[in-house]
């Protein structure tokens, strides 16, 4: 049986390394809740980290399903009937009737790197704090990477040149990067620095014309088209945003959409926005 200490340590180690971890619990066996809940820890891609479900075939099935969930950002917790994991095998299905597994995925905290501490960067930090991001702000002007501009003490401030600052940070699949510096030259430098990194989201502010120019220049410099296609530029959902706060909302809305999936349209089918559908 896994102890709480073992589970806690395994989760911490995995998250520090920027990797998610699945905790699989035998919720009920043949319709019964067991006195002690058997548990299994599974890392991506389907690696056993510890624990036991008391049956090897069941563990294989659980690991296979866990690796599917680990690979899908939207999955956090799900209960699955074991029989549904083996629909082709009638004998196994009856053996595991009324047996359910609980999958819980621990994911590294979401990170947000904001390049640029100007009005938009400040507003992005405010909105992102609501969504529990761990925020780092970079600006080469010390007066902008400053506590009076970012009063939330949880925001990490780096008053350095963009490239060395970006290189000093660990960029993982839990990292989101918002490029909103004071000018296109710095935006381009930041984009070039991070474009090949495994970040979940890279967005850059700018008009369609300006961002197209930057894309084309990077392409000529040999950046593969597949990398350029990952970049959200111009940044944000089109909600008609004008003020820095509205732009921040549009950016974070896009980040949520990327992570959770969705189509970015109004939900009401026959409300005032119906024409937009």
């Amino acid at each position, binding site marked *: 049986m896994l102890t*709480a*200490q073992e*589970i*806690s340590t395994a*989760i*911490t180690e995995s*998250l520090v390394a920027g990797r998610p971890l699945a*905790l699989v*619990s035998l*919720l*009920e066996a043949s319709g019964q*809740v*067991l*006195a002690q*809940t058997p548990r299994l820890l599974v890392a991506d891609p389907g690696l056993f980290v510890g624990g036991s479900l008391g049956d090897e075939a069941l563990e294989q099935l659980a690991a296979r399903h866990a690796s599917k969930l680990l690979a899908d950002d939207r999955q*956090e*917790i*799900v*209960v699955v009937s074991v029989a549904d994991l083996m629909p082709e095998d009638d004998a196994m299905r009856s053996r595991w009737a009324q047996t359910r597994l*609980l999958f*819980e995925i*621990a994911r590294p*905290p979401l990170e947000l790197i904001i390049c640029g501490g100007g009005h938009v960067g400040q507003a992005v930090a405010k909105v992102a704090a609501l969504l*529990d991001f761990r925020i780092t702000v970079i600006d080469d002007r010390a007066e902008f990477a400053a506590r009076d501009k970012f009063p939330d003490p949880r925001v990490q401030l780096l008053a350095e040149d963009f490239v060395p600052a970006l290189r000093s940070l660990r960029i993982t699949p839990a990292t989101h990067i918002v490029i909103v510096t004071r000018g296109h030259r710095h935006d381009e430098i930041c984009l070039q620095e991070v474009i090949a990194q495994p970040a979940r989201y890279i967005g850059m502010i700018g008009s369609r014309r300006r961002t197209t120019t930057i894309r084309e220049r990077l392409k000529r410099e040999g950046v593969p088209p597949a990398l350029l296609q990952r970049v959200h530029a111009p940044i944000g959902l089109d909600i008609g945003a004008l003020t820095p706060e509205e732009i921040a909302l549009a950016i974070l809305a896009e980040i949520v959409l990327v992570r959770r999936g969705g189509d970015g349209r109004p939900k009401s089918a026959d409300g005032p926005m119906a024409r937009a559908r």
Partner: protein
Amino acid sequence: MSLLTQSQVYDEITKAQATQQKLAVATIVTTSGSTPQRTGAKLLVFDDGRMLGTVGGGCVEADVWTEARAALAENRPRLCRFTLRDNPDVPPDEEGMVCGGEMEVFIEVWS
């Protein structure tokens, strides 16, 4: 509202165990229909009555607390099903609650 993370939960259990304290961990594992509750939400109920986290507040939280206390007393895990029905004696408009779903809460005891 930010929910307790998995790390926080197992850290808390480890801490409680270090001081010989028993606790129940209630997790919303499934929901169906219309409920304001979120799957994965956890409520920790300690032997001394202290609580940490939330399963979404309201009447459900009180019901989960009661079940957690019973699980602690019995020293056994349990799986509870709750139906979030509007009170039939009160017209829905007056009650102002938008429920009508079901949920399952898994309660485990760590000692």
